[in-house]
């Protein structure tokens, strides 16, 4: 007779143990999330703390004299003169005027090293835009050299790094600072220029445009092909050994390391079809191969989630199978397909390994204007900058990572938003 009471006791005893293990399990979960968040926040703080400086850059204020004889140009309409003109002479003259006491060859070289070697070309562009300035004088802010930029920023932070500078350069900068002729400005070059080996002139515009062209082609190719394949496999294909075989292979392809697609692209598109290296066409084709499996798999899942009753109702009303798919299944599955496509695109945006093989890991200065211009992409630009010896590229690298991350965040948030907005539940 004591048996039921005994069981009850047993259950009561085990209850607290089971509760404890549930509590423990919850804590494991919280710990896992905490570790994940901590890793992300360490990554973000590291990148932001290194990269925030790159959004501002040092400029020097100088009085320039657009002296026709010093530049060697008297007619701005003559392209030959524009090519031969000594544009760097303008900032050199201005520096000598600012520091008239400097003499001697090596001191002068150091003096000229204060401004970026692209400053002359910037002034050339300014002159071409305002031809009336030729022969005139004006006070302008000129881009400083990257070593000066690094020094000035570190000096403002209280830990001056002067190893690349001479003592004279340090005093000149202090002098300019006292006169208010050196300051940090918003670094618009970062967003408007292509790559450069001079950190102060380097920008990500070229890489952004390259990524844009490459991804556009990837989207144009992979979305219709992926959706068509998914619809056929889900709605029309007979269930037999062949379709099983295809399904297994699609799943396999989704897990193949991306570098393999690069090798495939090299063999087919470049060596066989002779598409030039380094152009967005070949990049887009390779990334299409890579994203297709992802899009097919998510599209099939989206089609599967459309309830059969809708199909049956359409067929029951006399619709053909084609009409049923196009009028009912596809519109209902489209949000899911779009989400899959966006996630696939985000993956393709962050990809650099397959592009290594097809020549898109290259130094390209000119901003690509189309699908057949040599181009590089954002992750590759990050890789190239991380590998450069110039110290100022460290902050540029982190800044480029921040820009890439913000693109990824925008794409992934829009995927979530689209799903929330358009998804229908049954």
């Amino acid at each position: 007779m004591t048996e039921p009471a005994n069981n009850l006791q047993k259950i009561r005893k085990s209850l607290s143990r089971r509760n404890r293990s549930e509590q423990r399990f919850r804590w494991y979960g919280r710990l896992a999330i905490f570790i994940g968040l901590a890793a992300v926040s360490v990554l973000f703080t590291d990148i932001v703390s290194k990269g925030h400086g790159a959004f501002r850059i040092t400029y020097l204020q100088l009085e320039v004299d657009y002296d026709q004889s010093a530049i060697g140009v008297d007619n701005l309409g003559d392209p030959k003169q524009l090519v031969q003109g000594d544009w760097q002479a303008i900032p050199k003259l201005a520096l000598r005027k600012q520091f008239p006491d400097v003499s001697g060859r090596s001191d002068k070289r150091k003096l000229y090293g204060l401004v970026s070697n692209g400053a002359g070309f910037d002034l050339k562009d300014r002159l071409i835009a305002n031809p009336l300035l030729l022969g005139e004088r004006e006070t302008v802010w000129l881009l400083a050299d990257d070593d000066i930029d690094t020094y000035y920023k570190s000096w403002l932070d209280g830990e001056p790094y002067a190893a690349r500078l001479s003592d004279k350069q340090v005093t000149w900068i202090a002098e300019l600072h006292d006169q208010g002729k050196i300051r940090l400005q918003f670094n618009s070059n970062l967003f408007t220029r292509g790559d450069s080996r001079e950190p102060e002139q380097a920008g990500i515009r070229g890489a952004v445009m390259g990524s844009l062209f490459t991804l556009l082609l990837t989207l144009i190719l992979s979305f219709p092909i992926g959706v068509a394949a998914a619809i056929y496999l889900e709605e029309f294909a007979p269930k037999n050994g062949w379709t099983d075989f295809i399904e297994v292979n699609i799943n396999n392809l989704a897990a193949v390391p991306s570098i393999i697609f690069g090798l495939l692209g090299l063999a087919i598109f470049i060596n066989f079809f002779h598409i030039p290296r380094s152009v967005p066409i070949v990049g887009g084709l390779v990334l299409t191969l890579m994203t297709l499996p992802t899009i097919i798999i998510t599209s099939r899942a989206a089609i599967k989630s459309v309830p059969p009753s809708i199909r049956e109702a359409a067929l029951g009303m006399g619709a053909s199978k084609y009409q049923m798919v196009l009028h009912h299944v596809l519109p209902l599955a489209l949000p899911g397909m779009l989400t899959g496509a966006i996630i696939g695109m985000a993956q393709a945006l962050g990809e650099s390994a397959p592009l290594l093989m097809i020549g898109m890991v290259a130094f390209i200065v000119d901003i690509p204007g189309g699908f057949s211009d040599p181009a590089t992409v954002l992750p590759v630009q990050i890789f190239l900058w991380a590998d450069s010896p110039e110290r100022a590229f460290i902050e540029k690298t982190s800044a480029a990572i921040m820009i890439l991350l913000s693109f990824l965040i925008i794409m992934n948030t829009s995927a979530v938003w689209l799903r929330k907005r358009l998804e229908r539940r049954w």
Partner: protein
Amino acid sequence: MNQRTIFSAILLAAASAAATSPALARDTIEVVGSSTVYPFSTVVAERYGRSSGKPTPKIESTGSGGGMKLFCSGVGTNYPDITNSSRRMKASEFEKCQANGVTEVIEVHIGYDGIVIANSIESAPMQLTRKDIFLALAAKVPGATAGELIENPYKTWRDVNPALPNTAIEVLGPPPTSGTRDAFAELGMEGGCKKIDWIAALKKTDKNAYKAVCHTIREDGAYIEAGENDNLIVQKLEANPAALGVFGFSFLDQNADKVQGSLIESVEPTFDSIADKSYPISRPLYFYVKKAHVGVVPGMQGYLNEFTSEKAWGEEGYLAEKGMIPLPIKMRRAMAENTRGLVPMTGKEALK
């Protein structure tokens, strides 16, 4: 109907994008090759593009060997015009070029690059000889009797040379795929290896055995492959003052507040000591030009002129500012004349 038009529009766009057949003629110079020469040739390309207003040459960093392979694959706009190299072209590569129709190749020796062995400035600078380097890093070192080789037993620098500090041997360096590693093995390791008489004698009798002894780096953890990224090695040295790192001179030049170069045979790696060759571990840098492409791809002559101008590769040129060690003035003049005159290699050069 509406959906059908959208669908066909998408398909049409896809088809037309895929069919945009790229023009075969190319107006951009294509350069491939060494990652060591890459930082220098990119600067020249950029300056050339900006001052001439022509398209800026495109430069890929494929490594010296990879560049030669692409370069020697054939003549025509599908193949690169120029390849950079941190070593001289090999005889086998020259033959491959010839076999594939790349008969006229112009060789341009542009300057030197030093390889430094550096540590964090928090530790004392090391005073090494090439023999120390060899003994510390070789897989097999000479034993007690001549002709005998034993597995490298040395754990600390003091084991190698009593004058060195009592710290564990820990060297971060590039992996075998890197040109820096090849040059380090050839100039640093072999340079020390030759100092041991019986191994030097081995060179005459059994060249392969000699090379195997001198070039093989130990794999028991004392030499750590730190990847191709030299910035990463600098960061790791900063974090670990006891370690040494092997990388190119330009990275030492840029990070003088974090790392210092070890003295090799009492010579500090500086710009001048590498230029006058008193610093022993330095290597020549080259690029190779396909003569058949000059005049076909626009701007080739202009790029060559820019590269061989004094303002680029001279003693006070912008390449020197980027850390390249220039050639002596006489060699520069001869080389510039040769290059501008497009004089190809004869095949009689002493290629290895």
